[in-house]
């Protein structure tokens, strides 16, 4: 039922526009397709991603909010919980039925009570505190554990790129 999904998305868009959380902007790129949004997320302060503005794409299913949207960063990312093609792997985005990692409790997974705002806030906290057990990007997880200095350097480079500052 795309109709009720549309109503809910419109309500969320309105709320995100009128009371935007600090450092988050999200909305449909082109209202011809209201089920595809772009979000900008500011890197959390005090972390290696501080200062960056990361663009991501959100694609909603027609039965939203019964099923979670899919989220993919459209800029380059290097993070233990983000696949190299930008897809984000966090429990809030997993439908209750599937459990790719096999250890998540259902309490952390998707429920229709969640919203775009909550997803983006979870992604920000994921940027601050990676879960290095999930193997979305094994190289990043390894580096995060063993060579934090190098990890910070790469993150710094990514931050500059998102701001359009030559590295």
């Amino acid at each position: 039922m795309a109709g009720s999904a549309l109503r809910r998305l419109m309500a969320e868009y309105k709320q995100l526009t009128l009371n935007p959380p600090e450092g988050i902007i999200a909305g449909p790129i082109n209202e011809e397709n209201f089920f595809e949004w772009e979000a900008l997320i500011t890197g959390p302060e005090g972390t290696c991603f501080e200062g960056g503005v990361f663009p991501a794409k959100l694609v909603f299913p027609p039965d939203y909010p019964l099923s979670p949207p899919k989220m993919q960063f459209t800029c380059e990312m290097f993070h233990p919980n983000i696949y190299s093609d930008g897809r984000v792997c966090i429990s809030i985005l997993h439908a209750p039925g599937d459990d790719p990692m096999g250890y998540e409790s259902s309490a952390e997974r998707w429920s229709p009570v969640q919203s775009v705002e909550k997803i983006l806030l979870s992604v920000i906290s994921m940027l601050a505190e990676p879960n290095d057990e999930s193997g979305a990007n094994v190289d990043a997880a390894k580096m995060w554990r063993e060579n934090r200095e190098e990890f910070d350097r790469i993150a710094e480079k990514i931050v500059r790129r998102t701001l359009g500052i030559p590295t």
Partner: protein
Amino acid sequence: MPVISVDRLPLPNLKAYSCVSVLALSACVYYAIQAIKEPNWNTMSDTGRRATPNDFERYNPGYNGTEADARTVGQFVSDIFTVMIREPVCVWTMINMAFCWLILLGRAVQKLVFGELRVSEHQQLRDKFWNFVFYKFIFVFGIINVQYIDEVLLWCSWFSLLGFLHLLSQLSKDRFEYLSFSPRTPFWSHVKLMALLATIFALSGFMFVVSIFVGFFGGFNTFAFMSAEVILLSIRTLHIIIRYALHLYDIRNEASAPLNSAEESKVWEKRGPISYYAELCFDLTALLIDLVHHLHMLLWSNIFLSMASLVVCMQLRYTGYLFHEIQRKYKKHRNYLWVRNHLEQNYPMATGKELQENSDNCAICWEKMDSARKLPCLHLFHNTCLLSWLEQDTSCPTCRLVLDIQNPSSANMESPELQNDPQENVRRPFNHFFHFDGSRYVSWLPSFSVEVSHVQAIRQNHIAASNSQLDAMARQVQTLFPHIPLSTAVEDLRSTRSVELTVENVLEGRLTAPVIFRETEREPSTNHRPMSVLQGDVEPAGAARNWDEFSTENVECEDTASLGSRFSKSSSEREKILQKRKEHLVHQARRRYIEKQRASTRTELQS
């Protein structure tokens, strides 16, 4: 034996085709005119009817009068027609002309109702078209086993008409689904689409009457074969119409207006079950009719032993698929009934007082609640919202309290079969390989094999599309246009699935790099190996660099107040504001970053 790949088959363009058709027809008419100039043309034809004295009289030059002239024109036309009917070449030309008319009509409808077709619609249309052509081809020659050219012609014209309506209905469905993704569709396009759907429905009703009429004379089998597809067409069309109406009802107030009366909210509550049952009924009926139709074909084809085994296999496979689908629908419906009964028996509706105390909206749809069901954890939801959630998960959406809804009759309700449903669709075979040995049926038919690449433009399919393949294609695009980021190219390729089409999109400006990142993604294929690019010989972050070179004032700082706290009613204005807000955020972040770097270099220099 030649193998034709339909996708690469060069089809002539419409203009050339219609010109040739018109020319051919005029040549035939010219021939006919020449032929009837002979005073006794009627007697000269060998198979023709006997010339009546009346005919001679009419072409008698001595005959005159205005009334006679008018009659002569009518007679003239019908004479030409008689001549043309007798000449096989002319008959084929006329049939060709009829096809041409049909195509032109389709094109006109497309221009009028749909405007420019989207790439996925194009693909879907082409795919459906070839599917229909081949299945019906096999049907006509393989199953009905027609021997006479007249019969072939009749069946072909019946199916072309039917196929035409099928394609239009499919196109309307695609377009409806597309329009339902947008809140700003103009009212007028809804009206046009609805009118087209209603016309298709009316025409299919008319065709059903025709098939009854023909079946009356031609026997039950003919009737069943003719009407099966017609019934399917009308059921599908009606389903789309009902879905469309429900959708229009859903969005009627652009999601902003709350439901204003209790009565209206009652209707709102009811629309959930209505759409559920409509979907169930229509899907089941369509599947059942399809199944019966296929079983009928199988039985019929066993009588005629000339059937190619391949056709039987294909039919069997499809019948199995239909059967499986029906079973799945049935299981799903049992689950639905179970959950609904469980809800009604175990969880009471909230009382008016409770509703008043709870000022929140329904947490699932974010709409106001005038009636609600209460879970043991005291959380309230709309009845329909809760039902559709509990169908797939058995916990409270808010607090995750696990509810004791385990359907005992089908303990495997949460089986992967149900969950992976979309995946299953995606994995269905994409290529049809048709092998047709025509000479088996009628001596004048050729033998050939045809491969149709079966591109299903389902949404899930797009997401599940093999990423490595897309990556490779995107890199191909990037070698031509280095300024297009890989992600943008991949995204476009997801819908076009062809490097050429994406390149065309870039050239015609439909695909551009996102504004803010245009300068940043210079290196191609950064997505592919982020490690090597990132770890390259980079100066360490924070190295001495002249931060004063960077201008921070290149932004005309918009009045943020005008951007922030406003949610425009017009969609284009909303888009504009969103774009401005995004740019503003990036510029702010950039300035803050540069200022911070400046400050830190200064403190470093001082110390």
